[in-house]
């Protein structure tokens, strides 16, 4: 590990330890925050007792579905928009402003369209995540060096071979940045919808625990989400870094 990596570990560990001490000494009342060690044991109990596996699976399935849909559709839409410059110049300012629109408010519409349950939540998450993928696709296709297109011509490639052997690998590092963001937003979209609107999933379980003053369970579940996101992020980041390393400096 790099020096920075070690420092980071120490910083995080110190923050956790500080919180532990603050809670243990009563400086932060346990009715507000419970000590990290208690969060960890709570998480352990949740996983072992299996009480929340249903919720966890529901959430993860929704995240996976939303992620896959957002990435796939986002890439397609991005590629189509990229091929149609007038559409692109019209849509781009709106894409840039997209995150300002509170997506969650359209939940009732999705319920009408997709019915109650995972589908509506997946739809919200896709809506939240897809723009990152569209933007990344546009950027990726833009950044394919023109000279590679000329090279494909010199090698007398057809359009299909060119798309798969030149365009796709050349745009890949940028596309993957989109993948990373799309997964993060899929997570946010699913968990947040569950939290505010739904009756199932990890998000709901946290809201439920909060409503029933069950701080221990609430913090256990929160820790679970933090851990999950960190793992997913770290894994995607590792791939990302390898792809980015290929980009010309």
């Amino acid at each position, binding site marked *: 590990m790099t020096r920075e990596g070690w420092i980071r570990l120490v910083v995080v560990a110190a923050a956790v330890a500080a919180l532990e001490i603050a809670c243990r000494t009563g400086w932060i009342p346990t009715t507000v925050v419970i000590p990290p060690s208690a969060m960890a044991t709570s998480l352990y109990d949740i996983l072992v007792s299996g009480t929340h596996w249903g919720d966890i699976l529901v959430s993860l399935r929704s995240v996976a579905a939303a992620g896959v849909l957002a990435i796939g559709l986002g890439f397609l839409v991005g590629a189509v928009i990229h091929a149609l410059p007038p559409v692109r110049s019209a849509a781009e300012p709106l894409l840039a402003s997209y995150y300002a629109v509170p997506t969650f408010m359209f939940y009732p519409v999705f319920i009408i369209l997709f019915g109650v349950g995972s589908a509506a939540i997946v739809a919200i998450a896709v809506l939240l995540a897809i723009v990152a993928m569209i933007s990344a696709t546009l950027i990726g296709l833009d950044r394919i060096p023109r000279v590679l297109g*000329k*090279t494909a011509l010199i*090698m007398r490639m057809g359009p299909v071979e060119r798309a798969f052997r030149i365009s796709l690998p050349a745009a890949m590092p940028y596309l993957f940045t989109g993948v990373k963001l799309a997964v993060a937003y899929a997570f946010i979209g699913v968990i947040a919808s569950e939290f505010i609107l739904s009756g199932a999933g990890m998000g709901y379980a946290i809201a439920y625990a909060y409503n029933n003053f069950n701080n221990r369970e609430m913090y256990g579940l929160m820790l679970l989400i933090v851990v999950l996101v960190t793992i997913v992020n770290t894994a995607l980041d590792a791939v990302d870094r390898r792809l980015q390393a290929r980009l010309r400096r």
Partner: protein
Amino acid sequence: MTVAALAEVADVSAVEDRHVRLAGVTRVFGRPGTPKSVHALGPIDLDLRRGEFFSVVGPSGCGKSTLLDVLAGLSKPTEGTAEFEGRPIDGVPAGVGVVFQEDASFPWLTVADNVAFGLRRAGVDAAEIARRVDYAVGFMGLKAFAGAYPAQLSGGMRQRVCIARTLVMQPRLILLDEPFGALDQQTRLLMGDELLRLWRETSATVLLITHALDEAAMLSDRVGVMSARPGVFIDVVETGWEVERDSRIVSHHRFGDITGRLWEKLRTESLKHLRDG
């Protein structure tokens, strides 16, 4: 100028030895005659002898790359005819290799895979690919980096990967568009040595576009000097070098003469360009 050199010049007009022929080639971007159209090039008349090393120098934006695009079949002349090996150029002709000014190595492939790319597509058998790639990689001084990715190489080494990738297909006409533009002058001259070696070994016809006068003067049999846009040849200088030559000829007294003559021709043209911004 040596007698041998003069004899070679005479040869160019011999029809059986004519490898490339451009006659009255012009290229206009946009619809000709409209106010937005750009007359980029021509009219150009140019014959290249089989096995000749020809360089093109000219001020920035004069149409050098446009000329190369026409020869590579990437761009159709607006007027005039372009021929390669006696056949009109329509689409990218077989037997032509191009090294572009920009780094065109594939960043997702290793050096060896980059060089093997064209051969694999052509369905050459594995043993033959390995042999040819090995040779080309070694020739370009990249042996130690065969497994490396382009991002791990310097700009000059990446350009060498592109040259190897082109060379391995054994083109009969090699077009090079400022291939060493990214390098400093000293490295460029050394790369020039390797280019000369390559040219001697393959006996391909080479057309090199460059903005470095010393490079043109040292490498070429003939140097064409282009005017500011629309580019036409305002001078073609015979260097009269032996086939066996390398960068040491820069201290040859004739080298200074050639460079001086090129510079004299270009100074006015470049000044025009500079004043335009």
